[in-house]
């Protein structure tokens, strides 16, 4: 599989960080979908085919915790990477929520690390990476 076969949604309320995701992952060849808050994530997931979700834990309005039941019910197979600026590791908590939790990363997240992890999760053929 190659990057252009996949759409990644980034949920992040900080626009500068959004931009970094956008630039880096578009450059990699993925389709990128950006969301500012929980409600946009839900709408986005409904309207588009999303293959992987990278979401900040804390967002204004509906936050990621509120998303969990929806993910469990409607998107149980969607791989999810959770990112947080706090160091509280809810790994075990996330694993129990019944959605496809993959990884927890503390901010600041190295884009290099994130790229690598996403390649692993989506089983991207290394030869296909731009």
């Amino acid at each position, binding site marked *: 599989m190659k990057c252009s076969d996949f759409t990644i949604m980034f949920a992040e309320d900080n626009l500068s960080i959004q931009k970094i995701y956008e630039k880096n992952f578009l450059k990699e060849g993925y389709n990128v979908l950006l969301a500012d808050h929980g409600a946009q994530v839900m709408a986005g997931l409904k309207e588009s085919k999303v293959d992987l979700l990278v979401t900040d834990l804390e967002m204004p309005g509906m936050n990621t915790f509120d998303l969990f039941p929806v993910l469990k019910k409607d998107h149980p197979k969607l791989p999810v990477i959770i990112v947080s600026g706090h160091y509280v590791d809810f790994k075990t908590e996330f694993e129990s929520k019944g959605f496809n939790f993959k990884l927890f990363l503390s901010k600041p997240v*190295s*884009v290099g690390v994130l790229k690598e992890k996403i390649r692993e999760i989506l089983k991207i053929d290394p030869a296909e990476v731009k």
Partner: protein
Amino acid sequence: MSDKTIRVLVIEDNLEDFQILRILFSKVKNRQYEVQNAARLSDGLNELRRHEHDVYLVDYKLGADSGMDFLRQAIEVEKCQAPIIFLTGFGDYELDIEAMRLGAADFLNKNKLDSDILERSIRYALERKRSEAGRSQLEAILLQSADAVMGTDLEGTVTAWNHGAEVMFGYEAADIIGKTVTILSPDDRKEQITKIREMVLTGQAVGSYETVRKKKDGSFVDVSASVSPIKDLQGKILGASAILRDISERKQAEAGQKKHEEQIRLAQKMDAVGRLAGGVAHDFNNLLSVIGGNAEFLTEILKKEGPGWEELQEVQKAVRQGAELTKQLLVFGKKQVSQAQSVNLNEISADMNKMFKRVIDAAIDLSILQGKDLKHIQADPGQIQQVILNLVLNAQDAMPKGGTLIVETKNVEIGEFEDGRDDYLPPGSYVELDVTDTGMGMTPEVQQRIFEPFFTTKADKGTGLGLASVYAIVKAWSGFIFVHSTLGSGTTFCLFFPALGQVEKVETKPIQQTLIPRGTETLLVAEDQESLRKVWVRTLEKQGYLVLQAGDGAEAVQKASEYGGTIDLLLTDAMMPKMNGKELADALKKTRPQIKVVFISGYPHEVLSEQGILDAHIHLIQKPFELDLLAGQIRKILDEKGIGLRFLTKGSSQFDAD
């Protein structure tokens, strides 16, 4: 006095002589006498024991007995305070001297007696006794006072020394009288004592000043002292008197209070830093993400080792350091992930020994002294390792030329009224961990600020967070930390953690991977043992519950009545003083019939049933139990429909704080 009738007892076997005396008494003008007679020595003594007479007149000849015997018995045996006047039929100088020596007030010749002589002799005798009594009372007060009272002459030589001074300083009066008073002065205060004496010798009194004096054994005592000149009747200064009061207890209490306040201030400061860090961490990390993310992006675009590439590496390095710093700061806000476990400091220090050997300089002689039967504490082993490593590395830094480093553990009991400790610790069982070095030591100023975040003495390599995080971790596990340091000779850090009850080794479990069930319900925890209650509350809060807590039944009822929302579950010790768990549950059910109740008890189910504390439809968790078990059990009970029956037998002995 002149208006009062003077009661006189005449001990005289010769009735005729007695009659003559009566006549003489009756002739005295302006004075009333009530004169009685005792014919025999034994009668006289019997009367004397009744203390009804103001003065005794005793004849030398009393049939077979002598008036001398009366005198001797009255004064030596009966401790008679009233004056005794001796009468004889003839003037005998030897007898006179002997009577005076025994304590007679006067010696009168019956043949030369007239009413004037009699009146004057009695008046003088009574007056003398009165002033003597006043003086001896004053003397007794001074001699027996708990305050030290002393006198010196003009040169500062001790001339008087009371019992209080003996007790306070350890010198007997005989040891110190004749010696110079500066013997009591610590070396750095010799001048002060001389200066005060000079002031006093000009006639000034020096009112209560606080100072330190040296005891015979070389130790010091805090005193409040007043020094006054001693003057004769003409106002000439003869010397100085000093009254000193021992105020060490008050001074100690003040010092303890001050230390305690310092601890509180420091804790507040840490808390503030933690809150601040917690508050900015998210935003700060976002900023770092932007900086780091863009730097990474640029790094990929730029050619490796090309222009600007190296600079970008530096930017990325700074981003990583910034992230590390935020992480460290979050320790103070207790936001760090921690794993509460039963921890044995002996096991941890033994495990770390290998690591010490790698990191500790060869010039440093490291010994680990492990206390016997060391109790366990509740802590995160990783954090405790961090604490020990931090202290050990600090100790090493304090000994650039080598030295001795000791890591010591021991059990400590702090009693209810523990005196003489510099360090303020509430009563209880503790495990103490001391890290001692023989390094350069610290000034008191440095010691005071050592735990402050960002305070560092290591100009080049310190972040000022090492000891601050040690402090935060110790505090997070309800511990205490103190530093004792002497400039030039070394430093000891003393850490105290509340001990868990058991001594025996528990199997150390791998860090729990299993999920402890969480919840958001409101729980009310009632337990009179504070240490236990804290652990439970902390455990349950970590699982997401809102926890109200109370130290006894009455407080629990009050907390429940103040709380507006639903309380889903009451977790209570079955046995508590005043109101037991059952009574508390009954009280709460009146207003909150839906509340679920879980009892915790160290007693078997049957005992509680017999005492009427437990009926069958009640949940019971028996002590000791694992904290995870508690959380799991509570989740189960909360999820049950209605009020089911659950009876839990003794769990593994992971936790028992009794």
